[in-house]
């Protein structure tokens, strides 16, 4: 028999304060091992990086919208970046590189995995904390120096890394080609450290989901957000070390003179591309699977209906995760590839459209005939689905080799990737933040300003990225400093200026969110335990949950999507509510 220590019952008192108030501020909020605090730490850090990445994007849009003109406020930048506020081409290269790096590695990925993986997994499966709380803490505090290093690259001699966020060799490998040495080295070291942080986080998540589910929480009673985070953790675990290995070789090429990717001594630039995209394509699904999970939870809640086709949702997640390993070559159709191999990559890529479409139709089936509640998270989740459809369809264009050859490295790609990364992931992140904010901070966000932020973001976002398809089809190259240098692109300047002005509106709209986020933290309306009438275990505990999460370990009786169940009067039925046994014959509904 397991012995339950008497101190345990004390620590699990309803408020949880009996245990927590003994801890110093430093242990409770800074070097905390509590998964909820670590999640919030990741949230703050990655939102700062999201803002920083946005600022970089604004400078890029200024240069493209108003090429060669002095940027308002650009005078504060040193002459090595923008003398008199006019952006230099070298600085522009660093801008596009770091915009991608910040957004992918320090904003979207930690927002999805670091924040909500940490915050939701123990709460939603009914565990008191992660399996390894101290390793969890380490994974955050390892990410901090990585972030500082990545920012520090801007102020070192030679400027920041400028070979694109994909750092293609040999440009990234030889300082004499790019003019950048220290910046690229910092880029490498920072991402190696961040990779370690991600790996530590992911094996913790995997162990927690496998071993610490509350009694009755069968695999097929897990919320889809947890399924998605679990599968994502497996992808992170297996893909990140490939990137680490590749970057270590790149770093050695730069620093101790090895020849992995330099063609002069027999190295292979193509090897970098294969390694990078062998990591990079699972990475794409790392960036979208959790978003799909959050959308599933929130759409079921907003529609007051069970998720349509729960099991097919789970198998679609698994199928995407498996197929995602066999498609990396579609990034390299133009890098020199045997056409037969290209065809096989084309087919494997198109296959991924099948599970993706299953998910989309299931979301539509969930909303269909629901009594929909259009709360802010629901709006963001529906935006996620619709934008993901556009992004997914443009992906089919690029998967087809004959089309890709024409649109490769144009703004069509930029449009596509922003439709899945911004329209997809980021809208789902906004949905998740607005949904779980009351649980995290114990206060509601202001619903009017949250909706205002949604409407402005949704409209401005489409004004920014939809015209980019048009730019791309007309041959407008991505990462180009000044399109006016080409005569055939000059007539597109008007469209570019329109995109830039829309981008400034989009950026400005994010301050509504930022102010709402910060102000609600202090003066928001107090949140009840279950503001959205949700079934998940996290809504059965106080907002914010006490240290240790659950006063008693919950027992789970059903899946998470029993909305509008005929068994109860309310239109929701929490996973841990025990119902009296049903009379024989009436069990047909369950």
């Amino acid at each position, binding site marked *: 028999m*397991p012995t339950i220590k008497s101190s345990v019952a004390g620590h699990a008192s309803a408020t949880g304060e009996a245990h927590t108030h003994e801890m110093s501020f430093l242990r409770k909020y800074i070097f905390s091992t509590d998964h909820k605090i670590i999640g919030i730490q990741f949230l703050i850090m990655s939102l700062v990086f999201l803002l920083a990445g946005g600022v970089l994007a604004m400078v890029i849009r200024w240069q493209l919208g108003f090429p060669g003109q002095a940027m308002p406020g650009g005078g504060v930048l040193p002459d090595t970046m923008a003398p008199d506020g006019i952006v230099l081409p070298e600085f522009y290269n660093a801008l596009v590189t770091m915009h991608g790096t910040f957004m992918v590695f320090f904003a979207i990925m930690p927002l999805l995995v670091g924040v909500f993986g940490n915050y939701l997994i123990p709460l939603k499966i009914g565990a008191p904390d992660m399996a390894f709380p101290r390793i969890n803490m380490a994974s955050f505090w390892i990410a901090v120096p990585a972030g500082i290093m990545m920012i520090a690259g801007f102020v070192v001699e030679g400027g920041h890394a400028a070979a694109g966020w994909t750092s293609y060799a040999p440009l990234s490998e030889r300082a004499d080609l790019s003019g950048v040495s220290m910046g690229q080295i910092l880029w490498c070291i920072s991402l190696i450290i961040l990779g370690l942080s991600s*790996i530590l986080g992911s094996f913790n998540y995997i*162990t927690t989901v496998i*071993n610490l589910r509350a009694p009755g929480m069968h695999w097929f009673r897990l919320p889809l957000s947890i399924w998605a985070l679990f599968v994502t953790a497996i992808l992170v*675990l*297996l893909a990140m070390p490939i990137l680490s*290995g590749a970057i270590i*070789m790149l770093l050695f090429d730069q620093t101790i003179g090895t020849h992995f990717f330099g063609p002069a001594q027999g190295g292979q630039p193509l090897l970098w591309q294969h390694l990078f995209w062998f990591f990079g394509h699972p990475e794409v699904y790392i960036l979208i699977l959790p978003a799909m999970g959050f959308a599933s939870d929130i759409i079921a809640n907003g529609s007051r209906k069970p998720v349509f086709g729960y099991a097919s949702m789970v198998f679609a997640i698994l199928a995407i995760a498996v197929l995602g390993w066999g498609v990396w070559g579609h990034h390299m159709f133009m890098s020199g590839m045997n056409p037969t191999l290209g065809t096989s990559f084309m087919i494997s890529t198109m296959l991924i459209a099948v599970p993706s479409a299953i998910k989309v139709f299931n979301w539509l089936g969930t909303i269909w005939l629901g009594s929909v509640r259009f709360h802010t998270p629901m709006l963001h989740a529906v935006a996620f689905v619709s934008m993901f459809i556009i992004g997914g369809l443009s992906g089919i264009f690029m998967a087809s080799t004959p089309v890709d050859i024409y649109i490769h490295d144009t703004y069509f790609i930029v449009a596509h990737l922003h439709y899945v990364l911004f329209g997809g992931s980021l809208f789902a992140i906004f949905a998740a933040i607005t949904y779980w904010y009351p649980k995290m901070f114990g206060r509601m966000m202001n619903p009017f300003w949250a909706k205002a932020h949604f409407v402005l973001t949704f409209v401005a976002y489409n004004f920014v990225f939809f015209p980019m398809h048009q730019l791309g089809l007309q041959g407008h190259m991505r990462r180009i400093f000044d399109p006016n240098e080409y005569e055939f692109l000059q007539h597109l300047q008007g469209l570019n200026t329109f995109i830039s002005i829309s981008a400034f509106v989009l950026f400005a709209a994010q301050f509504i969110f930022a102010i709402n986020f910060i102000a609600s933290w202090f003066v928001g309306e107090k949140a009840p335990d279950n503001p959205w009438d949700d079934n998940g275990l996290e809504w059965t505990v106080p907002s914010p949950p006490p240290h240790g999460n659950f006063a008693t370990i919950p027992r789970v009786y059903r899946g998470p999507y029993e909305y509008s169940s005929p068994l109860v009067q309310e239109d929701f039925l929490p996973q841990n509510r025990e119902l009296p046994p049903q009379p024989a014959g009436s069990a047909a509904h369950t």
Partner: protein
Amino acid sequence: MAHATPTLEENMMDPPRGYEEGAGVYNEKLGMWVFLGSEIMFFTALIGSYIILRVAHPEAWKPPGEVLNVPLTAINTFLLICSSVTMVKAFAAIQDGNLAGLKRWLIATVIIGAGFVGVQVFEYIHLVNDGFVPSEGLYGSTFYTMTGFHGFHVTVGVICLMYVTWRAFQGKYSAADHRGVEVVGLYWHFVDLVWIILFTIVYLI
């Protein structure tokens, strides 16, 4: 059916108490197996790159034994395999509750592991003095990166083993609870296994 919330210590029992059936092993063991999956992918990146570069440019490699000291490294390989044996002995000892045996076999493992790293450093110094450096073509690039990262893993393993040994001397392990010994053992055997592959493809082929 009200259970008290398990403490973190109870989470780590074998298997964790009070939960839905999971992997059937305690958290640290499951976590280490999962983590080793990550390590496999890391070494796959290095070994895969090595194979691709070598197939493309076989002329960049010297015949086995011309540059590298195969007999010395063969002895070193034998040492590392022996350290896996001593690790198994340490684990077997504590399973029987033999704390003295655990300490003895752990110390042996630490010494052999440290000896392996020492021989590797000695080998590096000689090679560099002979002009075989990391910038020496693809041969030098792959040799130093692969063996270097393996050596780094062995070093980390020795540090972990020293920690476990220190805890053994404090009497923290028993026949009932010896998770630390088993988990560090898993890592140690993995590092050993990787070396057998690296020794074969880097030195012998």
